[in-house]
């Protein structure tokens, strides 16, 4: 199984991968909140997420709320099929801004 990671590949993009589950979500939460603190506009790339559960979704929701509270912007990018299914189950696909790829996301934020 791919180890999860949350390494910003630019100042405003966080890439998540592997399983964002109860085991790994505490680390993901810290990294997302840290990224939100540092960037007014944040993109979270979910293309490599193979599994996400309610604890992982909670990380995304908390990051979104934190960004909004700081008058920032947060969007999801290239959401994997598995992650999209869970977002839809949580009715959050209409809450988050979701973009097909980074180029589309950057264009929308320009």
């Amino acid at each position, binding site marked *: *199984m791919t180890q999860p990671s949350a390494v910003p590949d630019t100042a405003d993009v966080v890439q998540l991968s592997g*399983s964002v*589950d*109860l*085991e790994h979500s505490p680390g993901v939460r810290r990294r997302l909140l840290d990224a939100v603190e540092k960037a007014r506009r944040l993109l979270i790339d979910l293309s490599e997420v193979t*599994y996400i*559960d*309610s*604890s992982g*979704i*909670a*990380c995304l*929701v*908390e990051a979104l*709320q934190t960004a909004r509270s700081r008058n920032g912007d947060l969007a999801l990018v290239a959401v994997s099929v*598995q992650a999209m*299914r*869970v977002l839809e*189950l*949580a*009715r959050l696909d209409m*809450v988050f801004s979701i973009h097909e790829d980074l180029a589309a996301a950057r264009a929308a934020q320009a």
Partner: protein
Amino acid sequence: MLDLPAPPAFAEEALDVLVESRVPARADRLKLLRGSVRAAARMCGLDDSTAQSVVLAVDEACQNVVVHGYADRKAGEPEGEIVLTLARCAEGLLVRLRDFAPPVDAARIRPRDLADLRPGKLGTHFIREIMDAAAYRPAPQGRGNVLEMVKRKEPRP
């Protein structure tokens, strides 16, 4: 429970037990269960997309045990355990989740209002959305909890 009907009371001989797993109730052990849930769901005739959804529902039920069930365990007490049984039944897949934690008050288990955007407490909602039946059963020797859930291989009539 969860606004879902209770599963039928299966006679044990009517069940084809596919796997029974006993793991410590720790977050890092739940991935060991997820693979067997997906495989068992496929063996019970569920398509792959549905099987993945069932993995999520069972994982969330196990998380409830890890996070809430054994939350009051004191230092020095034996580590909590989860016993997961996956069986083929007439309807499809039967999931039986046993723990040895204090009894759950099933009446207090409710999915949260999704319109209230906040982190957490989505697991119960996922279980309700994905599974077709769920109920707590009397635990053997009155110790712990037994949660049974069913996912039908055919859509609900």
